[in-house]
């Protein structure tokens, strides 16, 4: 047995005077950190297994537990940090690609935090959203270039099918398989209640969730798991997943061990078989091929469903988006590189792609310069953390935003970033029945509804402050934004002025 060179990252502090040896922590921890030492009549912990998910801490009836970062240290070194050293040990031990989950934890600039929002003073009135009408309804989809009239002189309705959202927020794609059925149920129920949409991700749609079809975006990814005519027709919209912010250029891999029972049935692949999503769609090697996939889906669904194309924010995103806008797609979803994932190679997640703020600004501006902004709606995702991020995204030019991590946090996720291990103690990123049942879909849906309702109220407050009473007047309204501590170059890409200008 080789020596482990990695000292546990966390320490579990148990206040012995509070611990009543109820062993709840032991039963709650799927990582088997806690155990009872019968001989000495006390609880012990194997900290090497702890992922800092707080399940034991949250449920301990006497608040006897807390988890702290270990102050065990290497000799301080600004160049070779602890994590870097650990990663080298791990790879030297295993020969493997480092796998990680959720969005990058690295301290990249968060442009949302360097943008400030305007408010009215004197020259025009702020509006009180609690008492005056304040509209957040959002339509996503293509707008005709020119209106036409019928023989009776009335305007002809030539709007292609789109999505109508009560508030400009959608739950982003998270597949059944990467998250549990109960998590999916909670998202579906909440989307229905909120008048918005959730997204199946690439794992197909469980039969119990077909009833939420009008609040469902069904995804078609390179692996085509669970994609069939009924699936396509059930959703309110179809999303072609070209890429994901956390892992641009990378496919997906759900290990065979997780392909059991309903997941196998929903993905329509044999039990125990690996579920591999190729990096590209093998029918799309060029932009004109995207048009082919868009139209094959439109044909298959009788032109009744808007098509989203989801892409990761990469360097050339503006040109890519322009190509997508001309492909027949109705909506572009851009996923910034800080976006989450159930599993991605750490080096990819932490180094590939660009921030959503810059990508969004560049895409919106480019589409306007080309006069085709009306051909597509833009959904921005990849680390939308709070309602002010939503406001800033819309003012930069988004029609709506995708939230994934924030939705999972509402369901109880503690961002331990161990989704890929499949032992989520909160019942979210796991398929273990005993863990899944910890997440009550009704309760989860209630928490999601609360979150989005609260954000919507905050969005209305901010809009009201700006004297805007409908979200479409905020869209692309960059004069409502100012940068703080940004360079001229960053300001110019964001298309905003600096605070004080």
């Amino acid at each position, binding site marked *: 047995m080789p020596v482990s060179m990695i000292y546990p990252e966390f320490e579990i502090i148990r206040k012995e005077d509070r611990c009543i040896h109820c062993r709840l922590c032991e039963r709650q921890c799927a990582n088997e950190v806690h155990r009872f030492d019968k001989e000495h009549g006390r609880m012990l912990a194997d900290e090497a297994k702890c992922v800092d998910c707080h399940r034991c801490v949250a449920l301990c009836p006497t608040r006897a537990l807390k988890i702290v970062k270990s102050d065990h240290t290497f000799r301080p070194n600004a160049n070779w940090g602890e994590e870097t050293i650990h990663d080298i040990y791990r790879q030297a031990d295993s020969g493997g690609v480092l796998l990680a989950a959720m969005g990058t934890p690295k301290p990249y600039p968060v442009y949302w935090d360097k943008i400030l929002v305007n408010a009215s003073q004197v020259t025009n009135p702020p509006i009180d959203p609690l008492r005056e009408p304040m509209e957040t309804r959002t339509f996503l989809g293509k707008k005709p270039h020119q209106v036409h009239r019928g023989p009776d002189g009335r305007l002809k309705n030539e709007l292609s099918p789109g999505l109508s959202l009560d508030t400009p927020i959608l739950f982003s794609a998270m597949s059944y398989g990467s998250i549990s059925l109960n998590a999916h149920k909670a998202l579906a129920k909440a989307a229905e209640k909120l008048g918005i949409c959730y997204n199946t991700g690439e794992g197909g749609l469980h039969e119990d969730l077909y009833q939420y079809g009008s609040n469902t975006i069904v995804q078609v990814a390179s692996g085509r798991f669970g994609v069939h005519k009924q699936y396509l027709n059930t959703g309110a919209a179809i999303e072609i997943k070209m890429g994901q912010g956390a892992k641009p250029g990378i496919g997906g891999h759900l290990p065979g061990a997780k392909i059991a029972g309903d997941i196998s049935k929903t993905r329509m692949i044999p039990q125990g078989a690996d579920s591999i999503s190729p990096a590209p769609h093998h029918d799309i090697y060029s932009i004109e091929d995207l048009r082919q996939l868009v139209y094959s889906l439109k044909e298959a669904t009788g032109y009744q469903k808007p098509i989203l194309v989801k892409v990761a924010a990469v360097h050339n995103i503006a040109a890519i988006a322009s190509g997508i806008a001309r492909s027949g797609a109705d909506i572009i979803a851009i996923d910034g590189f800080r976006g989450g994932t159930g599993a991605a190679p750490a080096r990819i997640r932490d180094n590939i792609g660009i921030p959503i703020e810059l990508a969004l600004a560049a895409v919106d501006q480019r589409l306007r310069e080309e006069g085709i902004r009306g051909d597509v709606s833009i959904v921005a995702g990849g680390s939308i953390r709070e309602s002010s991020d939503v406001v800033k995204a819309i003012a930069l030019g988004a029609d709506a935003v995708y939230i994934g991590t924030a939705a999972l946090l509402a369901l109880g996720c503690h961002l331990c970033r161990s989704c890929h291990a499949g032992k989520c103690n909160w019942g979210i990123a796991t398929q273990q029945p005993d863990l899944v049942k910890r997440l009550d879909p009704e309760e989860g849906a209630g928490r999601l509804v609360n979150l989005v309702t609260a954000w919507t109220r905050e969005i209305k407050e901010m809009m009201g402050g700006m004297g805007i009473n409908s979200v479409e007047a*905020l869209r692309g309204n960059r004069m409502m934004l100012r940068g703080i501590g940004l360079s001229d170059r960053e300001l110019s890409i964001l298309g905003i002025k600096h605070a004080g200008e």
Partner: protein
Amino acid sequence: MKKEGQIRIPSGCALSGIFSKNGTPVAGDKIVTSIAVMHDRSNGLGGGFAGYGIYPEFQDCFALHIFYETSAARQSCEEFLDQHFEIVNLSKIPTKKVAGVIDEPQIWRYFALPLPHKLAASQLDEKEYVARCVIKVNSEISGSYIFSSGKNMGVFKAVGYPEDVGEFYRLEEYEGYCWTAHGRYPTNTPGWWGGAHPFSLLDYSIVHNGEISSYDANRRWVEMFGYRCTLQTDTEVITYIFDYLLRRQGLTLEEAAHVVAAPFWSTIARQLPEDREAYTYLRNVFSSLLVTGPFSILFGFEGGLMALNDRLKLRSMVAAEKGDLFYVASEECAIRAVEPELDRLWAPRGGEPVIVRLNKKKEGAEKLCQCQ
């Protein structure tokens, strides 16, 4: 100091309009008297007027009113005009020295017709041709600014109180069937006359009171269609929105008004199914042209006038009638000042346009007026 175009200057204001449905000429001093009553709504930093039917002798020509900062600018601009137009008549616009109006630029007027071969080569209709020429001069020829470009109509504006501006331009010497006026209350000192209202393109003119909160959303949308918001003023963008909706999209005035001041979704939900579909369609297709924040506008066009408030009616506006004359103003007193006894006076609802048009001459009594 930065002027309009380099910086966005919010402003409050007063507005007034007079319209004769029979087309009876109304002298310009009447509108000056009306706007002068609301002196306190302006701060001396901008006033202006638009008159329709004022150039009957040149009614087929585009009347270009131009500010020049320098003679060199005039030379470049006239070179451009010569390349694109046949100039039927040109002159300085007659003015009079008035104490409150200073720093005047050179102010010239050209009655112009597009050069036929240039127009044909451009494959544009006459109005689009002229509009593009105007936008080109205003965005590319430094020191030149075309502030009026319609047929048989003209805009007169300056930095000053509106009553002084009216005197400066000797408006008592003009007669028209329609006049609109504006007194401006900008929040800081503009250096330049072009920023005053009305803003005008072709025969469209807008005077506006309020500050819209949707400005940049609107601007960035209309700029997709060739417009250049060089002044960064609300009137400029609203004029372009109407030009786009009316001339380029072919909407009716009512439809355009319901894009700009769209009914709330809750109001649309209570409409008859047919209307509901039409309003939903308009709000959806032109969602980025919804104008929010307080505004009241007078939109002048050939043969008509529309008054419109924002959908929350955050700015005041009253309308009135006396015989064939229609009046509209920010305050009732501006109407009473020129017409003490009225047949009818009412406050239009927010978002509901009041539209008046010239009665058709041949059909005499038939009224096209749609005021409610």
